[in-house]
């Protein structure tokens, strides 16, 4: 009791006063589903690999490996994917979407340059899986199954693997050395590739090869025809055939003036290819208007830049010696084209049909349990067909037809097959809350205009099959990655830690959970949640 005059208590610290008792709400760190990953048909965890890439040189390989967890084709996808992730990107509401596709390509090319490769994640299982079709779906499934330790054989009718990536997509969009290198890496995992081997009798194949499961991904290779009264000399061919021939090195004789009938991406590929083959005039005939065209706007814009012409609101009704008869259409109130009875003549030496594609399902004839609707094979949520152990994906099942969707199917099917081979039932993962734009605090993000990839000048594009869109250099790729808002997840910005008036946020060494709230002192003011750039903190009412 040796206190100075008028002092009766020892000095204490305010830490004795647990102000956490005042709290009515507590901050909780959350991780919301970002729209990019949500939008990615291949299932890539875009936000997370962008975050790896933000570290620059030290993070590129980590970023690439994270992509490879879901998608074995970063360099291919970085070129041909129509990037629904970017359409969904929250930054699009702020200025312009993050150039995710360009960064993916950069990482894919870095991997090829450094010869990064992947290995199996599980030891050999001793189970055998057959994959029919070496396109994006089949190769993706083969890749994932091989990594999971299964013995995989891929059979394809063509002399080279890649499916539509090789025989459908022109080289100016996807150089073949890039495709070859990424396929090479999959084969390097021990996948057996059987080329020039069409599967005619699946039942026999499964039995003779002692396969425990199979994944079908034969695509949609048959160009759809339309009835044209063509008693003509004018040449009519389909776009699938044309692109296939050109990819094998043929240069079909089409004449000076070529019409392409259809409005999808294949029509754009055909028209742009035709220009490169020397046609002075390539004109796309489409029955509706530009804004209703299924082709991706970037393809349409690039085609236009290369001198491709468009004739909107028109159908081809007749083909004669020196061209086509087209009928003008008008859109009704539902947006459907209706004939007007007005006809015009369009001079053309040949006509390329790009009216959609069908799947050849004949090799499944006689197999019990399978069902097809509208020419595509029915599958359940796990991509299993009506026959146990037989899965299918890609263009031959009902879904959006694109290489990215196909890659996603391959991954999902591989997971389902793996579960099935282990005698388990595939489970479904429960999706979290979405990271919507209004959850973000955009004040904190630096103003950063998007960097666009350089393109080959139009004059050279019209005559060569050189790649049109070039890659970003290291600096711009890094800038682009750093434009990511990391929506809905903590990226360790320290705002919560720094702005707590009560010093009640504690920094940890755990990168997965960089902060914890000290509930002994947190008064629940909510500043941390309000000032979190990414919307990764939410306030939860305390129980009474």
């Amino acid at each position: 009791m040796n206190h100075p005059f008028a002092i009766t208590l020892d000095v204490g610290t305010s830490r004795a006063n647990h102000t956490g008792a005042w709290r009515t709400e507590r901050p909780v760190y959350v991780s919301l589903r970002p729209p990019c990953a949500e939008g990615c048909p291949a299932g890539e965890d875009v936000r997370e690999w962008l975050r790896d890439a933000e570290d620059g040189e030290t993070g590129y390989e980590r970023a690439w490996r994270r992509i490879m967890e879901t998608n074995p084709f970063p360099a291919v996808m970085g070129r041909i994917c129509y990037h629904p992730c970017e359409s969904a990107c929250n930054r699009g509401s702020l200025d312009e979407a993050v150039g995710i596709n360009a960064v993916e390509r950069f990482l894919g090319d870095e991997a090829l340059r450094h010869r990064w490769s992947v290995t199996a994640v599980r030891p050999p299982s001793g189970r055998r899986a057959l994959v029919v079709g070496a396109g994006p779906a089949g190769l993706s499934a083969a890749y994932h199954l091989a990594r999971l330790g299964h013995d995989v054989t891929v059979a394809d009718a063509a002399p080279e693997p890649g499916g539509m990536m090789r025989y459908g997509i022109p080289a100016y969009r996807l150089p073949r050395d890039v495709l070859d290198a990424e396929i090479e890496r999959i084969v390097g995992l021990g996948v057996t590739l059987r080329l020039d081997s069409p599967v005619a009798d699946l039942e026999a194949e499964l039995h003779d090869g002692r396969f425990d499961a199979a994944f079908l991904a034969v695509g949609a290779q048959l160009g759809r025809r339309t009835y044209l009264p063509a008693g003509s000399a004018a040449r009519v061919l389909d776009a699938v055939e044309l692109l296939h021939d050109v990819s094998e090195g043929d240069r079909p004789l089409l004449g000076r003036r070529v019409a392409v009938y259809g409005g999808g991406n294949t029509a754009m590929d055909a028209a742009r290819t035709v220009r490169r083959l020397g046609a002075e005039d390539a004109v796309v005939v489409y029955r509706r208007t530009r804004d209703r065209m299924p082709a991706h706007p970037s393809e349409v814009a690039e085609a236009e830049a290369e001198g491709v012409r468009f004739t909107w609101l028109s159908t081809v009704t007749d083909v004669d010696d020196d061209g086509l008869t087209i009928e003008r259409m008008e859109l009704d109130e539902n947006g459907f084209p209706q004939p007007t009875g007005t006809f015009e003549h369009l001079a053309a030496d040949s006509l390329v049909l790009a009216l959609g594609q069908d799947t050849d399902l004949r090799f499944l004839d006689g197999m019990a349990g399978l069902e097809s609707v509208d020419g595509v094979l029915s599958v359940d949520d796990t991509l299993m067909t009506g026959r146990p152990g037989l899965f299918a994906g890609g263009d031959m099942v009902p879904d959006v037809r694109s290489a990215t969707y196909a890659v996603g199917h391959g991954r999902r099917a591989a997971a389902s097959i793996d579960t099935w081979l282990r005698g388990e039932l595939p489970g479904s993962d429960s999706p979290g809350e979405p990271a919507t734009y209004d959850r973000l605090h955009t004040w904190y993000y630096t103003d950063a205009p998007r960097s666009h990839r350089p393109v080959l000048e139009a004059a050279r594009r019209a005559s060569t099959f050189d790649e049109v869109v070039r890659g970003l250099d290291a600096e711009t790729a890094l800038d682009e990655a750093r434009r990511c808002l990391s929506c809905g997840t903590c990226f360790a910005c320290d705002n919560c830690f720094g702005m707590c008036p009560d010093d009640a946020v504690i920094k940890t060494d755990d990168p997965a959970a960089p902060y914890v709230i000290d509930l002994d002192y947190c008064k629940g003011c909510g500043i941390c949640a309000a000032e979190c750039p990414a919307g990764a903190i939410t306030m939860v009412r305390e129980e009474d």
Partner: protein
Amino acid sequence: MSESRLYQIGTFGVGNRLLTPEDQTVQAGSDRPRSITRGHRACRGCGEALGARFVLDSAVRAAGRDLVTVNATGCLEVFSSPYPESAWQVPWLHSLFGNAPAVASGMAAGLKALGRETRVVGQAGDGGTVDIGFACLSGMFERDDDVLFVCYDNQGYMNTGVQRSGATPPAARTATTSELGDPPGARFGQGKFVPLIAMAHDIPYVATASVADLHDLERKVGRAMQLHGARYLHVLVPCPLGWAADSADTVRLARLATESGMFPLFEAERGEITAVTPIRRQVPVDDYLRLQGRYAHLFGEHPRPDLVRRIQAAADRNITRFGLRGAAS
């Protein structure tokens, strides 16, 4: 390795793993001094508790921990030191409401006489600075005593029940400026903006800062600590209780105050303005006022757009006078 120009959130947030160590804030470090530690009794979302830790932590860092502080009576003093507890992790002294600048002057003189390098920081709310301690403060400036004096401006006597101070803005409701009068709330007077009065003393350094721009605030404290003589820092610290605002909106309000032009951020040396922090995304004063219950009578059933216009005119005058448009224009 290629150098990127972009750092995701740049310096807008507290920390950023992509910045170099020298660009990091003191607050972002786990080893920050924590001059006011946890367990203090400030209200939920208190801007002053936040502002005082921001300022003192960087001053302590700049002084190499050799620093003492004097506090006037006010919220900061009361909530940090209920007998016998103290939240202070720096030597801290409280004397009276009105004499903090004089006590700080005396401490500085005494330390000098002892041959010590110890730095002195005086602290007060707007009551202790603008009104009650003003004579002592002006004397401290006039004598150019070696003290950094910091005013945490929450625009009223919040500790005693939200009475009007010389820093209470026009039209704001306080316990002594009723919204029932005409005009309602605090009167439109000539204002009493102490940073400009401090500048009139031609002292080495005067700056304004806000809890919404930490990098700016820490840089200003750093600059003040490089200098000797009388220095003055005026920090806007929103008060959820007195302003009748949501406790989560403290930092947002501080940001809106500067982005609307209501509270200009600038620095001055020897009486001349040397730098202003330009508005980044200008907002109308409405955005700032509507979040605060003390202005509710301007927008309620009987709105007073005429008064909002007068407040907007004052903000516009700040923008012109201090040249705040900069990057935003």
